[in-house]
């Protein structure tokens, strides 16, 4: 909205319009009736290609970064700097034998990875990857995203149950418990954004974050007190939703062999990994959209860089954050996991909901009142955080070491 009003906007730059121009060039010669269908197919193919490649190189980046953090180089044998490693992995996965246990539920065992990948992908349809770059524009696209994402854990349950393996079944139970626990803070942390932006549509939410306060401070939601709190809760819940370390309980290697993946091999196993990374990418993309200003540039002078590049940079940064966290934290126990959700994240998100409401109600405060508004919002984040953190860590004093000093 803001950008539409701005004259001589960077929206007219050639690089900015390149994807749309390319699409028009590819579909322009078709009859009118076919055009939207082909355009839809094109956007599907683009999303599949880009995110497939992103998945491939995320696996490599993850292994490289984990390696560096652990004082070793990571994969570097296949191609220069190991850049061909993902393809070698793909060939390996494709040529491996596909083993299905005799006692397994054959149909569900087959369906689980397929369903998981499909569900992880469909959420990407509503993400605005750049100015005018969204596959499906809907009024309730945020709701659509979470409705699609909520079902992924169902596929993990299917995998765990169909394998007819006690570790897998335990993983299935854990996946369900984890989903029920973390779906709540995930959705609650999104609600204030919807309240403030006044819309359930991702394009509107991104548009609401356009512009800069004093020409320097972007109007991104994550850069407000309530927004930062919501962003933090969202990212923690997203970690749990995508079964990433430190919340990777369903596939906890050291306890459950590989959890729901125990009885999977070859290409199906690779599909599970693909789904994990796609889910991670989808949730990160949603976080960028909701909190980090989507495709908006951080500074006005940087607007000459096309919007999709900004989106990509933010997405990659969040994904690197996921990897960094994985390299740092040990896995939680299942009771700690649920405790963290119900006793910390959910109350924090609930308080933050009120905080966001207050922010939306005081939207017309300017000047000195704006400072008061910021102060109120910051207070509404810090005070509950202190209280909740204290109650969460009550009884867990600093650990004393008897023989070793930390």
């Amino acid at each position: 909205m803001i950008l539409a009003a701005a004259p001589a906007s960077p929206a007219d730059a050639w690089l900015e319009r390149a994807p749309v121009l390319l699409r028009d060039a590819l579909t322009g010669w078709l009859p009118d009736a076919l055009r939207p269908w082909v355009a839809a197919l094109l956007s599907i193919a683009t999303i599949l290609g880009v995110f497939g490649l992103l998945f491939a190189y995320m696996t490599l980046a993850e292994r490289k970064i984990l390696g560096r953090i652990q004082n070793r180089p990571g994969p570097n044998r296949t191609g220069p700097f190991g850049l061909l490693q993902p393809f070698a992995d793909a060939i390996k996965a494709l040529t491996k034998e596909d083993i299905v246990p005799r006692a397994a539920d054959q149909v569900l065992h087959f369906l689980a990875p397929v369903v998981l990948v499909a569900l992880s992908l469909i959420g990407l349809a509503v993400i605005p990857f750049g100015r005018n770059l969204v596959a499906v524009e809907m009024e309730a696209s945020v709701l659509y995203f979470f409705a699609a994402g909520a079902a992924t854990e169902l596929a993990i349950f299917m995998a765990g149950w169909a394998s007819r393996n006690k570790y897998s079944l335990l993983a299935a139970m854990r996946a369900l418990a984890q989903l029920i626990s973390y779906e709540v803070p995930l959705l609650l942390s999104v609600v204030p954004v919807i309240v403030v932006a006044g819309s359930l549509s991702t394009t509107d939410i991104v548009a609401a974050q356009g512009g800069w306060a004093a020409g320097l401070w972007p109007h991104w939601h994550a850069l407000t007190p309530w927004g930062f709190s919501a962003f933090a809760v969202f990212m923690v819940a997203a970690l749990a939703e995508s079964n990433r370390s430190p919340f990777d309980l369903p596939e906890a290697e050291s306890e459950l062999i590989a959890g729901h993946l125990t009885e999977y091999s070859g290409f199906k196993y690779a599909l599970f990994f693909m789904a994990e990374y796609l889910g991670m990418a989808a949730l990160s993309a949603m976080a960028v959209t909701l909190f980090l200003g989507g495709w908006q540039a951080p500074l006005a002078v940087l607007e000459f860089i096309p919007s999709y590049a900004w989106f990509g940079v933010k997405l990659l940064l969040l994904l690197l954050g996921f990897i960094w966290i994985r390299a740092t934290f040990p896995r939680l126990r299942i009771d700690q996991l649920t405790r963290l959700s119900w006793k910390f994240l959910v109350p924090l998100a609930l308080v933050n909901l009120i905080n966001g409401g207050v922010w939306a109600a005081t939207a017309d405060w300017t000047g000195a009142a704006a400072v008061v508004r910021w102060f109120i919002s910051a207070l509404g984040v810090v005070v509950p955080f202190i209280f909740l953190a204290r109650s969460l860590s009550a009884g867990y004093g600093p650990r004393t070491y008897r023989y070793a000093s930390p």
Partner: protein
Amino acid sequence: MLGKGLLQGLAVTAKNLVGSYHDPARYVTQEYPEVQPKLPEAYRNFPFLVSETADDPMGTLRCVACQICEKECPPQCIYIEKSKDKKPDANGKLQIYPAVFAIDTAVCMSCQICVEVCPFDAIKMDQEFAIAATDRFDGLLLNREQLAKPNAYYHQIHPTEASEVDARLAAERRAAEEKARLAAAAKAAAPKAAAPTAAAAPGVPAASASPGSIPPPGPPPSSS
């Protein structure tokens, strides 16, 4: 405060990530096949046979096929067949030599007992550890030709120990020459007074020590 520890942990890993690009102390992994590890001198794993020269390893093996190592080897990985004939050794003395000397490195447990019992300093521990092979019998059952390595190589891998051994052998050789000279002199002077027991006494302390044992630590003897 909740989260302080989390941030500290993140800082630690971030420091390692960045440090691994410029700080060698944070990047300790060596890429093995290209970068060979610097082995400490004391490193030893499988035995090899010492020959005096690199030109004619089979002709100058110190081993006289006494079979003590074969008998002492705990996992019994050494197999020796004595030769029927005799060949002159480095001192020119006629000795039996091993017609077959094989070590099954798949069985060897690197205990070094063979080295310790050898009276002739003929078998020593190597530093060759990349012995992986595709065929267990062709690749891991090493024969005489594969085991033989020159003394120079021994100096290269275990310089301190090799100098000691050389010094000792030289001393022994000198003692033997002295003895031979004395014996010859005694024979010339008084043929009936020649007694073999008198010879060992003067100036050869090393020879009196048990020949196979590792010399006690200390400054190496000056030279050979």
